[in-house]
């Protein structure tokens, strides 16, 4: 997606009714819009409906877009609002519940560290394998990337939402907080839980 300057140009092209501009942004933003929608509503077909409804809202509101946030953040917030309403109507449990923010989920399994009554308490029993010693082709192999995709798909909803926006789509931390209406602290906590789970999945694969 274009930056701030690019946003103004893109908004002008959309306002002028340029179909190519609309096509480009609809395609480019789809993974992010779908990812946000899916995080709240669960079902694929419902998430696609949310994206469609969001675009109608975006077009209706385009004249009022003032560029106070980026176009992407503004659009993703519209998606999140519609998806939240939809989840409430369908009495679906929401992400970002207290359960999702369970502080006790460790980034690394506790048995990997030495106990309080051992020398160097809290230190690694055995160091993790240095991936920098692996051939690069191993990390870039399509099976490895497929594994990352699968691991992200299996995350709890709130973690999946945050890592999808932040690492998969490449939003800034501020954009994620604004889109999902969460605090920077919760954003980092969920991001770290998510990354830690995906890392653990990779570790099992790469060490095996």
């Amino acid at each position, binding site marked *: 997606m274009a930056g701030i300057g690019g946003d103004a140009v893109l908004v002008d092209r959309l306002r002028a*009714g340029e*179909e190519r501009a*609309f*096509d480009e942004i*609809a*395609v480019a933003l*789809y*993974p992010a819009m*779908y*990812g946000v929608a899916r995080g709240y509503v669960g079902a694929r077909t419902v998430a*696609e409906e949310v*994206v*469609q409804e969001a*675009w*109608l809202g975006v*077009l*209706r509101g385009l004249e009022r877009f003032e560029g106070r946030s980026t176009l992407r953040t503004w659009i993703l917030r519209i998606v999140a609002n519609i998806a939240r309403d939809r989840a409430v109507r369908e009495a679906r449990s929401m992400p970002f519940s207290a359960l999702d923010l369970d502080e006790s989920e*460790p*980034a*690394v399994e*506790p048995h990997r*560290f030495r106990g309080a009554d051992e020398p*160097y*308490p*809290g*230190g*690694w029993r055995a*160091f*993790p*394998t*240095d*991936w*920098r010693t692996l051939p690069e082709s191993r*990390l870039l192999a399509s099976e*490895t*990337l497929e594994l*990352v*995709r699968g691991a*992200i798909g299996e995350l709890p909803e709130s973690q999946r939402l945050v*890592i*999808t926006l*932040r*690492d*998969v*789509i*490449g939003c800034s*931390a501020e954009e994620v907080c604004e889109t999902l209406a969460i605090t*920077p602290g919760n954003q*980092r906590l969920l*991001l*770290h839980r998510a*990354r*830690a789970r*995906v*890392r653990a999945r*990779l*570790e099992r694969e790469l060490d095996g």
Partner: protein
Amino acid sequence: MADPSGEFGHDYTCREVVELASDYLEGAMTVRQMTAFELHLNFCDGCSTFVDQIRTTAAMALGVTEDRIPDDLKAKLLDAFRDWKRE
């Protein structure tokens, strides 16, 4: 292995460092925290490997989505855009 000498104020244990890796990578630490964190990494191969693994994981996630816009949805959206343009 970090040497918990206590010489530099609060020394993080490895178990603490793994919880703070994203705070570090996101630049969300105080100078004091960052100093203690980096000191630990300098002495601890295990934790510097872990932080690299988290960084690598985040980098590998970039773009790993198969969510492409379905053709029928794209056609519907384009229709909506044309309707909007006419109004």
